[in-house]
C-alpha cells in the first residue's frame, strides 16, 4: 500500500514539477494542480495509512490514536484543498489578464527570440 501511494506521490510530483518548468501558462496551472494533489497526499500520508479505521468518535468516547485515522494531517489537508482552489483561481485570472494585456500566453508575457 505504502509503495503504491508513494509511487503515486512521486509521479504526481514529477509531472507537476515538469509542467511548472514549461513556458506556457496553462501548463503551469495544470502543473500546480498536480503538485497540490501530491502535496496533499504527502501531508495526509504522514498520518500513516489506515484502512477501515474509525473517523468519527462515539458520543462521549475518548479516542485512542491507534484506532483512529490521524485527524491532524486531515485538518491540514482540508484547509490546503480549499486554499489550493483559491490559488488556482487567482492564478487563472492573472494569466488571463496577462494574456489579454500581452496577447501572449508565455509565462514571461512574450515569446523568447
Amino acid at each position: 500500500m505504502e509503495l503504491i501511494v508513494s509511487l503515486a506521490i512521486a509521479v504526481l510530483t514529477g509531472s507537476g514539477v515538469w509542467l511548472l518548468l514549461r513556458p506556457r501558462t496553462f501548463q503551469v496551472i495544470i502543473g500546480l494542480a498536480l503538485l497540490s494533489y501530491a502535496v496533499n497526499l504527502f501531508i495526509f500520508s504522514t498520518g500513516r495509512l489506515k484502512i477501515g479505521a474509525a473517523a468519527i468518535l462515539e458520543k462521549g468516547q475518548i479516542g485512542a490514536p491507534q484506532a483512529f485515522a490521524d485527524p491532524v494531517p486531515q485538518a491540514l489537508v482540508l484547509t490546503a484543498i480549499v486554499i489550493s482552489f483559491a490559488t488556482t483561481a487567482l492564478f487563472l485570472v492573472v494569466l488571463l489578464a496577462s494574456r489579454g494585456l500581452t496577447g501572449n500566453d508565455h509565462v514571461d508575457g512574450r515569446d523568447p527570440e
Partner: protein
Amino acid sequence: MPQNVYLLAVILLPFAGSLIAALLPANARNAEAWLAAAVALGCLGLLVFLYPGAGAAPVRYQLDWLPQAGLSFTLRVDGFAWAFACLITAIGALVVLYARYYMSPSDPVPRFFSFLQGFMGAMLGIVLSGNLIQLVFFWELTSLFSFLLIGYWHHNAAAREGARVALTVTGTGGLCLFAGVILLGHIVGSYDLDAVLAAGAEVRGHALYVPTLILILLGALTKSAQFPFHFWLPRAMTAPTPVSAYLHSATMVKAGVFLLVRLWPVLGGTNEWLWIVGTAGLATFIVGAYLAVFQNDLKGLLAYSTISHLGLITLLIGLDRPLALVAAIFHVFNHATFKASLFMAAGIIDHETGTRDLRRLSGLRKFMPKTAALAIVAAASMAGVPLLNGFLSKEMFFAETIETHDGSLLDDALPYIVTLASMLTVAYSLRFIREVFFGPPPTDLPRTPHEPPRWMRFPVELLVLTCLVVGIVPSLTIGPFLQLAVHSVLGSATPYYSLAIWHGFNWPLLMSVIALVGGVVLYLLLRKPLQHGLRSSLFAGRFKTQRLFDLVLVTVSWRWARSIERVFGTRRLQPQLLLLVSVALVAAALPALLHGLSLAPVALDGIDPALALVWAVGIACALGGTALAKFHRLAALILIGGSGLTTCLTFVWFSAPDLALTQIGVEIVTTVLLLLGLRWLPKQLEAGVVTANMSVLKRVQRLRDLAVATAAGAGVGLLAYAVMTRAAPDSLSRFFLQHAYSDGGGTNVVNVILVDFRGFDTLGEITVLAVVALTVFALLRRFRPAADSIDIPEQQRLQDEHDDAAADRSKGDTIADYLEVPAMIMQLLFPFIFIAAMYLLLRGHDQPGGGFVAGIAMAAALILQYMAGGARWIEARLRIHPLRWIGIGLLLALFTGAAALPLARPFLTSAFAYADIPWIGKVPLASAALFDLGVFSLVVGATALMLLALAHQSIRGHRRPAPGRASTPETN
C-alpha cells in the same frame, strides 16, 4: 497626579501637537505658532513638576511591551536628563516664537511646525529613554525628522542634497549605534539603562568591549558631526534658520554628546575611550575652528564653529576625568545659549538684508543697533571673553587640558594646541562681528536693512541675557542645575569645582589672554586676504571626506546595485522556478545524503490489486495530462480531473471521509473554473511539428528539466515512503482525539479541530479565501481579452449560423435543444443539492461534512443553474449577491469569536449544547456551529463570486484593442 504620568505627558504632548499641527490650514501661521509654543511651554511646565532633588532616585514610567525580549517602554528622568529636557523645551519655545516671524506667509507652515514638534518629541524621547533600544528608536526618529526639516524647502536642490547627506550619515551612525546597543545589552543581559549603568566594570572587562565601544561611538560621533563625519552639518545649513538654530545648538548635534556623557560611567575610563573620543574631539575642534575662519557665508561660519565647539565638548569627555565631564556638561548648556542666539541673529540679518555673504555685509550697526549689540555679546561669549558664560566653561577646559592624562607626547602638547585653536575661535568670532556690524555702510544689498519685529528679537534677547547672567553670577543661576546634572552622572565621584569668575592669576587665565590677543592679531593679519577671497589652501575649501562620501554612495547604491541586479536578477519566470525547485531539492537531499535514509524493505505481498489498479489509472491520467497540457488543454483538464478523483478515492480508502468529500467538491468547481478560462486562451495548433525542428539548446533544456522533475518526484516519493513505513510517533493527535468530544462537543474530530481548537487558523484561511475572491473579481472587472479571443467561439458561431438559416429557429435554439434533458434535471436538482448542502453543514460537527464542503456544494448548485439556464435566464429569476455572502460570512465568524470576549474568555472560545428541534431531532448547537455557518456563507460567496465573474466575461461586450494589434475578423 503621580509624577510618572507627567513624564509620559512630556513625551506624548509634542507628538500630539505634531499631529494637530499637520491638520491645520496652510496659512495658519499664528495658530501653528501658538500651538507649538503651548506644547513646548507645557512640556517645560511639566518638567518643573518633575524636578528631581539632588541625590533622589530617578522617576520612572514603565510599560511592558515584550518583557521576554527585555523590551519595554521605559521613561526615566534623572538630573542630567531633566536639565537636557529643559534645554530642549526652553530653546524649542524660543525657536517657535522666532520661526513665527521668520517663516514667510507663502511657506506651508503646517508641515514646518508639525516636523518641528515631532523633532522635539523625538529629542525628548532620547534624553528621557530608560531603555537603550527605545533610545535608538528615538535617535533614528530625530534623524528622520531632521531630514524632513533640513529638506523643508524641497524645491531647492541644495536643500534636498543637504537633507539626504544628513540622513545618510546620521542614519548609518544610528544603525551602528543599534548594533552597539545590542552588544551592550548582550553583555549586561538587559537593555534597561539603570541596569547598564550599574554594570560598568563588567562591560569594560568583557571581550566584546572594544567592538561595542566603537559601534556606539560611531553613532554618537556621526550625530555630533565629529571629524571625519562632520561634513553633513555645513550642508544642512540649507534648512530654514530656525531649524539650524534648534538642531545645531541645543538638540540634534547635542544628542551625540548627550549619549557620550550618559554612557561615560559604563564605557569611559579606558585607554580606548581616551584615545578614540579624545582624538576625534581634538581633531574636530581644530579642523572646525580652522575652516570656520575661511567661511564667507554667515551660517557656514556658524556651522563650522558649531563643529569646533562640539569637538571641544567631545575632547573634554574624552579626557576621561570627572572635572572634565563637569566642564563638558557646562559647555553643552553655554554653547546652546550663545549658538542659538547667534543663529537667530544670522537669520535676522539674512531676513532683513537679503544676504548672508560676509563680503557684502558691512556697517549694519547703524541700521540695527539692538541686534548688533545682542550679536556682539553672543559672539564674545563664543570667543571666551570674561564675564560671559563661554568664558567660564573655556577656563575649565583650559584647566583640564593642562592636567596630565596619559603622559604621552600629545598629552604634553595639548595645552599649546588648544590655545592655538582657541586663537582661531577668537579670530572667526571677531570676523563675524567686524565684517557684519562695523565698517562703512553696506552697498548694493538686496533689501534696506532695519531692525526686525519686536518679538522676533525677543528670543535673542532672552538668550543673550542668559549668557550675561550666567557669566556674571554663575553659582547663583546655573550652579544648582549643573550640580544636579553632574551629580546624576557621576554620583559619589562628583568632584569639587568652583564656578567663580576669578581664580587668581593662573595658567588657564594666561591661556585665555594669549588666545584672545593671538586671535585679534590673527584676524588683523587675515582680514585683507579674506576680503579678497583667500581660501583655505590646507584643505582646499571643503574637506575631502565629503567627496569620498559621495563616491562611496554612488558606487554602492548605483554601480554595485546595478551589477548585482545584472548578474543575479532575471525577469524570466522559468529560471526562477528552476532555481527554486533546485534549491528545495538540494536542501531536502542533503540531510538524507549526510545521515542516510533507512528505508523499509519493499513488501510486494501486501499490495491491494484494486488500489494498484486505481492508481494505474490515476498515474496514467497524470502523465497523459502532462503530455497534453500544451496542445490539448481540454483533454489535459479532463485527465487531471481523473487524477483528482483517484486522490479522492485514496482518501476514502484510508479512512478520511471528510477529505474525500471536500476534495470531490473542490474538484468540481476547479474543473468548471478552468473550463471557463479555456475560452480566453490562444489556440495552439503546432502539435506534431514540435520535436522535429527543435534546437539543440532547447533539447538540452528539456533534458535538464526532465532530470530535475524526475529527481524531485523520486525524492518526494522516497520521503513519503520513508515516513509511511515508520511507526507513528505519539503526536498531538492524541490530545485532539481525547478532547474533541469532552471539550469541543463534536464527534467529528477533524471538524472540531477546524472550527474549535484551531478556529483562529480557519478564520485566517477564510479571510484569505475572501481576499482572493475579491482580487479575482477586481481583476476581471477591467479584463481586456486578447484580440483573437474576442470573436464568438467557432462552435457557437456554427450553431448560430444554423439557427439563422432555418426559418423557424432563433439564435440559441440548438444549444437549448441539445441540453434540454440535462438542463431540466439540473434545474430540478437545485433544491436537492441545497438540502444536501444544509445537511452537510448541520451534521458537520458530528459526522463527515462541515462548512467548507457544504459551501462548495451550495456553490456547485448555483453554477449548475447557470449552466442549465444561462446567465441571463437565471439572473432574471434569482439574484445572487456573492459579496454579501462573503461579508456576512466573515462577520458571522468574527462575531462568533468575539462573543467570547465579553465573558472574559479568549477570542473564539466555543460553547456547546444540544437543542431538540421538532421534526429534526437533537441537533448539536455549539457556538462553533455558528462559526461553521460563517465559513459556509463565505465559501459560497467566494466560490460563486469567482466563477460568476469569470462566466460573465463571455456575455460581456468586449471592446476591441486599437487597430493594428487586432487581426482582421472574418465575420462581423
